[in-house]
């Protein structure tokens, strides 16, 4: 009887210890994975920075100006007296009311079965600042 009790206690102790070890292993595994993903994100952010800086360079006044307004270029700043302002008719405005135009956003479709069996929330793209 005593031996039986001893084995039971030992088994319980062993199971708890194994569970603890398993949890620790998982934590460290997640930490490695996290580090790997962090590296990936850093690389993507660096690439994003490079792309952004290239965009800034291409759209800078210096770049555009040198491209568009090269010496002897016929391009010049538009004088106000050359601008023709058009006024639209009331009926056109009523037909195409700019202020009431709305962008139709497609509703999210969720799969009922997936939502039951999944504990995760749906992935959403969040802009990185």
């Amino acid at each position, binding site marked *: 009887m005593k031996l039986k009790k001893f084995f039971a206690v030992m088994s319980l102790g062993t199971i708890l210890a194994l569970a603890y070890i398993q949890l620790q292993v998982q934590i460290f595994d997640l930490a490695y994975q996290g580090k790997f993903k962090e590296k990936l994100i850093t690389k993507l952010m660096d690439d994003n920075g490079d792309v952004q800086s290239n965009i800034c360079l291409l759209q800078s*006044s210096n770049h555009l100006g040198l491209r568009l307004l090269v010496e002897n270029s016929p391009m010049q700043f538009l004088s106000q007296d050359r601008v023709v302002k058009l006024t639209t008719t009331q009926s056109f405005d009523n037909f195409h009311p700019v202020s009431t135009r709305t962008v139709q956003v497609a509703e999210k479709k969720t799969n009922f079965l997936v939502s039951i069996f999944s504990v995760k929330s749906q992935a959403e793209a969040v802009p990185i600042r």
Partner: protein
Amino acid sequence: MNNQKRHLRFSLVFLSCIFGLVIFAVKLVFIQVFNAAYLAKLAEKQHNYFIELEPRRGGIYDRKLRPLALNVAAYSLYAKPRAMTVQAKKKAIKEIDRLLDLGEDFLKKRLDKDKYFVWIVRKLTSADVATIKALKIDGLDFVKESRRYYPNQSLGAHVIGFAGMDNRGLEGVELIYDHYLKGEFGWSQIIRDARHRELLIEKGFIPPKNGFDFILTIDETIQFIAERALEEGFRQHHAIGASLIIMDPKTGEILALANRPTYDLSHFSEGNQDSRRNRAIVDMYEPGSVFKIVTAAAALEDGKVKESDKFFCENGEYKVGGHILHDHSKHGTLTFKEVIEQSSNIGTTKVAQLLGPVTVYKYAKLFRFGMPTGINLIGEVNGVLRHPSQWSKTSIAAIPIGHEVTVTAIQLLGAISAIANDGVYMQPFVVKYIKDQEGELIKEFKPQAISRVISGETARRLKEILAGVVENGTGKLSKIPNVRVAGKTGTAQKVLGGQYSHNKFYASFIGFAPVEDPQIAMVVIFDEPHPSYYGGTVAAPVFKRVAEDVLKYLAASK
């Protein structure tokens, strides 16, 4: 006998085991009790790792939030010479030199050092980093840093300034506001495994405080227009230097500030000291005829002279205090308005003689000559304006026409803007507001009226006289179709070795447009233009070209 022998053997084995166990126990006690603190510290040192977190240096933007300076990631290459084999060093020298052209001697010197860490090259482009990584040379590695990036290269270089290798501001706004731009470092304590691999387990974390963003009063497009025209004039007239500043006369906001020679902000080390100098605020020069606006303003404000009053201009030669004063062309009798329009030195001197030294000095001070304008840029100089007690007998024929006095381009701009702004002097400034990374406003620089220099009525009359300079006088080349321009030309001999040079001049033009509702005030100065050297032929056309485009741009932006 056999039994006794077996017993002895058993006892020996047993005792050996016990002895072994005792040794283990002693060692354990030694580790756990006596050596515990030391070993725990050692383990902590091995597993815990502090990382300094670099803050993001604040960006610099133009008035329409177009980026002028921002940060991008950069990788710096370092070597571990002690860990490198001879073959690896040879390969590194050959390949890195081929890629980056650093020089084999330089690389050899670096890699021959008996050190664990030496920098090879800082802040490389991502393309270079990828190529070097592909070479797989043992002992070479990268450290992530950030690099300051200026998308407009040399545009606005003297206002923006630049940050050095360690992201510390060294010139311009980057230097003056470095404290706010740089932010504060943070730190993170993470765990490393036995192989020194970092794990994403943080034991402590203080986030870095990013620097504030600066929004300037500069408009990138206007800056481009100004730089383009200045560059053209600079080349065309073979000048050794040039400055151009544009200001909104109603607010004091500097819309553009350009100097020649200039430098590329992304390669600032290639520029020399001369090209980095912000001539518009640190260089003083004798202004010549543009200074006559002070004499004219004083005469009108004090009521000593009217536009129609006549002055005999002595047919080009006039003796004052033993010194003969000349006009660039001979004039007989001119009205006061014509004196300014034709820029007669003799006529202006006679006006000044009516006013007296104290009045001329008083108005020069009111226009803030001889003192800094207070623009938020580094290195502004006062200029020289002597007190009447220090004037010589000939000073009354020199100072009112812009000699024996030195000014800066920004001081001239402040003065002409005060006339454009109905007599109110506005403080020039280049920073519009400061905000944090979340867009929260930290500080706003509002337009600041310093003082009223002349009455609104005097300013209106003076505007008409200066419009006459452009319509009938020396500033005809600044005329813009369908826009009324007011301005004043200036041609001043340079002082070299205490003597006036006969072949080296400053050519300048100050003005504003449109006269009815001034949108911009501008100063254009060329240093030693040749062969043409008159303000009216060198600086006025640049004013016209810039003002014409800027006014169109401003109208289209509304």
